[in-house]
């Protein structure tokens, strides 16, 4: 089964945006960590764009938890947008939503500071 994952990084006025595409599972770990490292070479927050993500499972949640742990150690804010209603619920149930700011859309995520 296709479990490809890609991540690209772009600068924002006050940080960086990481665009995630494909499947977030344990296979996404290295790519996502590399993208995070690139994003955090700049100061400021990291915004995760989930619009291109079609599937997240528990191993993917573990990868995101790893990312949140790093961000917390570095006192860096994590924002997110583009999550489907279902994954928004999953993020709420797992309490990931307590450790990142989830926005309704790109505009809100970029505008937030």
């Amino acid at each position: 089964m296709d479990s490809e994952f890609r991540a690209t990084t772009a600068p924002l006025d006050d940080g960086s945006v990481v665009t995630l595409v494909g499947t977030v599972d344990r296979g996404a770990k290295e790519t996502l960590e590399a993208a995070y490292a690139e994003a955090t070479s700049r100061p400021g927050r990291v915004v995760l764009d989930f619009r291109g993500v079609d599937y997240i499972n528990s191993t993917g949640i573990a990868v995101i938890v790893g990312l949140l742990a790093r961000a917390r150690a570095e006192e860096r804010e994590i924002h997110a947008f583009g999550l489907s209603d279902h994954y928004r619920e999953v993020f709420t149930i797992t309490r990931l939503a307590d450790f990142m700011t989830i926005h309704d859309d790109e505009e809100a995520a970029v505008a937030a500071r």
Partner: protein
Amino acid sequence: MLQRLRRRRAENGQTSVGKGPVTPTTLLDPIPIPSGDPLETVLLSAGGPVGVGDLELVSPTLETIRSAGVELIVPLIGQGELLGALYLGPRLSDQPYSSDDRRLLGGLAAQVAPAMRVAQLIREQQAEAKERERIEQELKVAALIQQTLLPKELPAIPGWHVSAFYRPARAVGGDFYDFIPLGDGRLGVVIGDVTDKGVPAALVMATCRSMLRAAAQRHGSPSQVLAEVNDALVPEIPAAMFVTCLYAIIDTERGDVVLANAGHNLPYMQTSDGVVEIRAAGMPLGLMPGMDYEEKRYTMGSGEIMVLTSDGITEAHDPRGEMYGFGRLMSRVARRSDDMVTAVVSDLEAFTGPDAEQEDDITLVVVRRSSSAQDSALAFESGELLDAFTVASEEGNERVAIARLAEVVAPLGFEERDVERLKTALAETVMNAIEHGNENRPELEVGVEVRATDEVLTIRVTDQGGAKEIPEAQTPDLEAKLAGTQTPRGWGLFLIEKMVDEVRSTSDGRTHTVELIVKRKGAL
């Protein structure tokens, strides 16, 4: 209702209106003639206008009329009833009323009376229609209050089956029931009935329900809960209204039931030795403060049933006026049934007859303790097989399984959100089967079977890791994970349990099976 007016008459014998040198027309305050007054009898039998001066009666009404200056009374009679009367003062000419005048007035009265009767009837009908509308509206409000407060769903507890039935009478009595989760595997079960009907009963029911919910969280003992609610309710409840109520706490792990009863129908336990009534003494709620409630205990064994009812069942009548009664209810409960709610309701309907208007609200709560395995097998085997397939134990194959599940459940009418939850639950279950059960050995298969009844959808996932211990789902400690003191993993079982109504695991030493159970919308 009598219409009375006096007209000062102009000299030419016509009612004065508008300009002219005549004394202005004045209206007299109405002087009702009470039913049974001797004057009524005289007017009914007079056959025309009656001169006040000719009357010699002991009647306070006549005195009032006389002192108001009335000289002539013209009765308005229709169908033998005194509908009203015209009171006339002296003629402006100071001449007495002539016999012509009287004949003219008598003729006028004969014309006016029927028209007045019609007007009265129309007014009465309008008032009645308005009253009917008000009652209908009130019934709607009462029904709305009641239905809003009854549980929207039944508790789903492994090893237990809870069902409930509520059907309001047309006039909506004050029946209610409630399930209160108390933590530690304990469940509070309430059934009650407010005397009286309509909006007042519905409001008392709402108050009582909130009080019970609050008290249930504070006290672990049903007698304390009822005593507290009773004391709180006494100053709130209208006089002559009270609430019968039974409150039971079930320890769902051990099967222990502790209950107290404020004058409600006795609970029945269906046991292997027949039906047992549990008598716990107590006064209805809201009558007087400081009441004590007796507490009784019973331990429910596998397959035993507790039946709680309202008096709308036991006090229903057949066409000859005989009551359904406790005896019939008890013998119906004594006969086993997989669906006791339907069994009792159909028995009752057969008794009252098909066309009987329901006299009072009917409420039934049935709690069955069953061994989890039996229950599960029963529910699963009785469902229609929708799909069965296998996937090899290779990473990523959970997505094959959920893609197929999405197709299978598409015609079942689930909301998109529920389908997504099902997919996540199945994905995580299949991943566990691949990794932990089958240890990622591609030659081992993971079996998936999907069945549905009208009530539930069940997905069975089977792997070959039967000899292994089945881990319990634990709530992951996110703080510890973020602090790096706990592995970031360990979300699978937690997620599965959150995504479906019930998860059951069984193992036979060779295979290991996980069942995911979700209720279908619209099912009780």
